[in-house]
């Protein structure tokens, strides 16, 4: 292999590293509202966001597991985050969406009240979860600070983990 070729390859590697560095600085999230609070999950964990459609109830599960629905041939569980977070149930409105979140082979749909927007937050603006909820058990991954508000970032693994 010629030296020139090596040089080019090295350059490309460097370039790639730079891109990764830039990406590493910023976290991309999708924000949504449940009740009065704004939450967010990493954009890459979201498979898709869809409008509500009918689902099938499943027996012998906690109230917050609404059931299962058909997403293009796959049977996917549907979880109501309002109920999961201990909020009173609310009728679905035009703003209600199902967020389909995937982590490896685990996938589930989550009912949220309203979407807000895609958010880019610098890594340094993401703080750890408050001490009171610290530990492995928490569903909170961190707290993102924006100019006028803070956003709770949820742990995808924890969301998709069966806890009953």
């Amino acid at each position, binding site marked *: 292999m010629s030296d020139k070729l090596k040089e080019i390859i090295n350059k490309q590697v460097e370039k790639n590293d730079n891109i990764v560095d830039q990406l590493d600085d910023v976290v991309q999230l999708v924000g949504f509202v449940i009740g009065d609070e704004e939450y967010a999950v990493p954009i890459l964990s979201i498979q898709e966001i869809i409008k509500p459609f009918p689902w099938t109830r499943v027996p012998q599960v906690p109230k917050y597991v609404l059931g*299962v629905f058909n997403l293009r041939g796959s049977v996917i569980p549907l979880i109501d985050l309002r109920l999961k977070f201990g909020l009173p149930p609310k009728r679905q409105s035009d703003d209600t969406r199902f967020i389909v979140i995937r982590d490896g082979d685990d996938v589930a749909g989550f009912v949220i009240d309203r979407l807000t927007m895609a958010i880019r937050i610098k890594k340094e603006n993401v703080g750890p979860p408050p001490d009171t909820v610290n530990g492995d058990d928490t569903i909170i991954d961190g707290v993102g600070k924006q100019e006028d508000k803070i956003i709770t970032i949820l742990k995808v693994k924890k969301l998709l983990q069966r806890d009953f």
Partner: protein
Amino acid sequence: MDEFQEILQDFLVESFELVEKLDEDLVELESRPDDLELLNGIFRVAHTVKGASSFLNFDTLTHLTHHMEDVLNKARHGELAITPDVMDVILESIDLMKALLEKIRDTSSDEGIDVSACVARLDKISNGDLSGLADAVAQEERKEAQEPKKEEEPKKEETPEEEEELDYENMTPEEVEAEIERLLAQRQAEDRAKREAKIAAGEEVPSMTPEEEEEPEKEEEQKKETPKAPAPSSQKSSSSKKAEDVKAAAPAKRAATTVEQTIRVDVKRLDHLMNLIGELVLAKNRLIKINSDVEERYEGEEFLEELNQVVSIVSLVTTDLQIAVMKTRMLPIGKVFNKFPRMIRDLSRELNKKIELVISGEDTELDKSIVEEIGDPLVHIIRNSCDHGIETPQERIAKGKPEVGTITLKAYNEGNQIVIQIDDDGKGLDPEMLKQKSLEKGIITEKEADAMSDKEAYTLIFKPGFSTATAVTSVSGRGVGMDVVKTNIEKLNGIIDIDSEIDKGTSIKLKIPLTLAIIQALLVGVQEEHYAIPLASVLETVRISKDEIYTVEGRSVMRLREDVLSLVHIGDIFEVERILDANEHAYVVVLGLGTSKLGLIVDLLVGQEEIVIKSLGDYLKGIEGIAGATIRGDGGVTLIVDVVALMDIAKETKVTQITSGAGSAVSEKTKASDYTIMIVDDSKTDRTIMRKALEPIGVTLVEAVDGQEALNLLKSGDYNVDAMLIDIEMPRMDGYTLASEIKKYNRYKNLPLIAVTSRTAKSDRMRGVESGMVEYITKPYSADYLASVVQRNVNFKPEFL
């Protein structure tokens, strides 16, 4: 190292296949000890395994197979007779070989298994220790064997080094290369020799002398034109004997030469293919549904016929495709059956009984996954038949039965199921004895025992902890086996059916669905939900009226012909909210599984459909009573009932009384606006007139433009409606239908429905009453009249005015 692994894999696959065939051959060999073809086959297996294992440095295995080869080689040269004693040692060595192969598969090494004892025994045999008794036979056989020997000789000359174990480890690469080439050449030569042997009249001896060469032809003639002059050869007797051999062996040989055209496919690929077919089946269901919708809407249109044709072709091809792919996953059940002759042989020697095994239908095919699961239960059943079923020879003779007991193992297709039937002609099951035993062991209560039919008593043998053998033998009697049978068969959604007659024998039938991925299901409805029940577990469905259900000890039962069937409501199991009013009639789906039966009460039978089982995923797995889900023609998800679990749950589920009128508690009205009236009319003008008439009294008003919307509003529960004003003529859903739909719900039983219509005929009024309307106001009406009717019906308190 990877390359080594690859070779190792090939070696293991090949060896296990060979060994599997071996068992069968060996048992057969015992009954036909001079079948040279069989012996050669067995010898080849030992030889192949030896060659490969020495190449792969599995010393223990090489050591063992080398000695096996010695014995077998002698046997096929007629220097050794195969007696049952010799056979025992050979079988033992084959078991060891299997153990070693398994060890290699698991650990990539063959260390840790002691073969020396077995090798010593093999040596003893090959050194002729047993020849004392075998000599005479051997002498005779040797004469016979002279010719076959000639066939072997050239081969032997070519392969003398083979017997020496070469030290491959210390070879230089060049030497190894050379060795491989030499082995290759040797193998080719062997193959050639074999081929030639086959070509030569499909049997025997490419002989050395021309005189002998003619002989086979003469024999052929002999076969065709019976008694001809015997060949003028010195070996007269032996040649005619040989002719017999030719006759016996020739067909077998020919069958062996037709090589099957097969390829090995990774099971994962087949699974993937099966998944895709599953998707296709779902799409097909959907297409059929759409087709029928379209048919309804555009009746009589010309394009319909074309559409119909396409849909039926698609569904036909899909079904064929599904069957074809299913077939690729099918294995003949013979694969499982093959190990039983050996097992029966061992068992009968161990138990000192004489047992013959008759196998039929071994070509019957089953899905690979089922074939893998079915082995264990069959082993247990057959062991049980040998140990408990078949009597000792003395007993049998005393009973006037033939000394040799027979166990028949049979497989055949029956509809969408495969039936495996195991019959024995032993002593049969004694229901009274079974009950007595179960009572002693506390498996059943006295009351249960009294109520039990004979058939139910037979099923007691499948209860955990049950064993009829008075003494525990190494074969059975620990009360584990038959329990395993039941669990495994139930896992496959199968049904067990036992029949028995004392001193005549026992017959056990296992009915198993052909495949597990795509199944026929019965769809049932309960309230507003649907569930799918695997059709294989459904015995029948019955329509009953409510008063046919009796309650015994807090559980529902019904009489089904002779039997008492315990019942459970599907709604009780799946916690279905009773929002719809219960019908006077219900349907009972009689489920049968393993040996138990259960009646499942449902509200509605929807129909039969082919469904594809999908898993609920990790998040929801393990929900009791649910085996999975399927996607229906309309795109919705329907849950599949797990009949096994259902039977268990049913035992604990008590009847919940149907709570009638348990609607939402009526809250106290404190002001006029607490009253909510729904106006249902498709005409804006009419709605406005009603609104104007009711606004003065201060009630809350909700409007809907047709029956469908009204029903949805009502079901949503957003409003606590106190009365409804309903127009009759409406699009989508008319007033009558709306009224009868509403009346289906328990909580709206007492909701006043007031018809407001321009239809004045008496028959219209009658229909209104039938559908549940309480008042009938004809247009035009005065505002005061409407207001007063509404007030009367909602018990409006005058002080709010």
